[in-house]
């Protein structure tokens, strides 16, 4: 597996360095979970990602391959789960890129650049004895799966709250363990928002660190809830990306210290760096 596979980390252990080239990997399996597809790929040369890190993905065939259709640029995807030599991604088909990825079959080629960005901070110093509260919305549950794996392995454990639009989407909850669920239409679990569940949890016991990923309005609600209660929160944000490795300056989000490149200084940002999680152009 070589040096790369060992995974040099920087940024306080929150970033595993990526090999500088994109890797051509092979799709092992695609599995449907309601509205979502899970893509499992062989990545023998890849280093182990930190929870919250992402990769830039592009199909080898029919992806602007030297002759420009859309999708043209690679797309960013959180690592859903990592095993030695394997990676999993969770996709929702919302446009030409996710559409193309969602039709890949076992054996098809995929370009992977990653792991990229700074993931969640889960060191003992960060938790400082508080419990980890994982809050996910929609396809934003992806990085929480690998995060739960890590917290379980370290013995810290985690409370997991997930929100979905409807029953078709809540099928994604099967990807995590011991979850509490909210759906907009009440078809599964609490009828309402996942932030209702979060408020309940924090009211019960505010000694928590919140790790959240989901659509901008959800993240903003999480940010406000936590700020009111002075609960530390780490938010995995989204923004349109062209490169994923800091080259284009296209993915900036506003923070209290000005714009930061989300692919380089994120995607996980401490909530107290933000005035708002409603970043322009993100979400669909």
């Amino acid at each position, binding site marked *: 597996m070589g040096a*790369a596979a060992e995974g*040099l980390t*920087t940024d306080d252990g929150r*970033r595993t*360095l*990526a*090999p*500088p*080239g*994109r890797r051509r990997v092979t799709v092992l399996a695609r599995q449907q979970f309601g509205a979502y597809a899970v893509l499992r790929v062989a990545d023998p040369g890849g280093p182990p990602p930190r929870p919250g890190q992402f990769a830039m993905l*592009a199909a080898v065939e029919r992806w*602007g391959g*030297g*002759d*420009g*259709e*859309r*999708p*043209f*640029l*690679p797309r960013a995807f959180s690592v859903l789960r990592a095993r030695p030599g394997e990676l999993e991604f969770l996709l929702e088909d919302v446009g030409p890129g996710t559409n193309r990825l969602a039709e890949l079959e076992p054996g098809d080629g995929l*370009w992977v*650049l990653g792991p*990229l960005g700074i993931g969640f901070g889960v060191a003992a110093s960060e938790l400082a004895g508080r419990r980890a509260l994982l809050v996910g919305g929609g396809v934003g549950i992806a990085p929480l799966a690998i995060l739960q794996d890590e917290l379980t392995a370290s013995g810290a454990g985690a409370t997991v709250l997930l929100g979905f639009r409807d029953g078709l989407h809540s099928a994604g909850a099967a990807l995590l363990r011991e979850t509490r669920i909210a759906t907009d239409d009440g078809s599964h679990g609490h009828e309402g928002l996942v932030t209702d569940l979060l408020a309940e949890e924090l009211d019960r016991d505010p000694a928590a660190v919140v790790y959240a990923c989901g659509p901008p309005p959800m993240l903003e609600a999480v940010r406000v809830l936590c700020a009111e209660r002075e609960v530390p929160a780490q938010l995995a944000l989204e*923004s*349109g*990306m*062209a*490169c994923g*490795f*800091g*080259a*284009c*300056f*296209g*993915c*900036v*989000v*506003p923070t209290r210290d*000005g*714009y930061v*490149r989300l692919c*380089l200084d994120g995607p996980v940002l401490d909530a107290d760096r933000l005035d708002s999680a409603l*970043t*322009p*152009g993100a979400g669909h």
Partner: protein
Amino acid sequence: MTPLASAADLPTSFCGIELAHPIVNGSGTFDAIAARRAFGPALEETFPFAAFVSKTVTLMPRQGNPPPRLWELPGGLINSIGLPNKGLAGYLTHDLPELAALPVPLIVNVMGFTRDEVAELVRAFAEREEVAALELNVSCPNVETGLIMGADPTETARLVERVRPLTTKPLIVKLTPNATDPGAVAAAAEAAGADALSLINTIRGMALHPRTGDQWLGGVTGGVSGATVRAVALAQVADVAGRVRLPLVAMGGVQRGRDADDLLRAGATLVAVGTESFRDPLAGARIAAELAGLRQEAPAPGAVAFHRP
């Protein structure tokens, strides 16, 4: 496709700078410092370019345009980045030492809103031996002044005349494609003392929000780059090559050795890779190798003369 060839087969001399091959990056499309954060020391071992061109430096720090800053096109991209950078002082303190440590020569790209500002920037780099050459961005379509200076032969000539005496380093003028007659601007820059020209910068474009129909980009309009501008770039490079004797750094939509070869045939000395690096961080090295492969098949021609019928 092309036989495996080494880019080392293509040593190139540019304004007295000896390069391992003719492929460099387009300013603002590769951040070597960021890439080192993402990739670690392995980046240096596989550094994809024969020289590194830094993102445009302005006198004062700039935040850049509000997001969203990107819009994908079939075969391309519109960006409205807006030249964020730490400003001259920040660059000298934080960036220059890191970039000077790269395994390839450094070309610094600068832009000013007045001739005085450009002069100040040029003066600041004139004595820095870390810097192999200077590129003047007179063409950024995101910033008012870029359009004005670089689109007009007289304005361009005045700018070059003003800064020419301030440095003995090679001065590259980066032309804007959003001009009536880039060849005339090129000729003016040559007459005023430029050592080389680079082209094309991005072409002004725009996108509307797919649902609301409002402007998409925070900067309203942006610059188009990528495969979709390739044919326009080739035309401008061939035109400029016919008007000046200066070496050219050609760019615009280069994705493959074949595209680089077309620009070299049209008269360029170096070829820069921009948007393609977003798709493939090592695109520069791949393109150099593909080019070396093409050269093994058919040796470099003299620049082709294009005859009007």
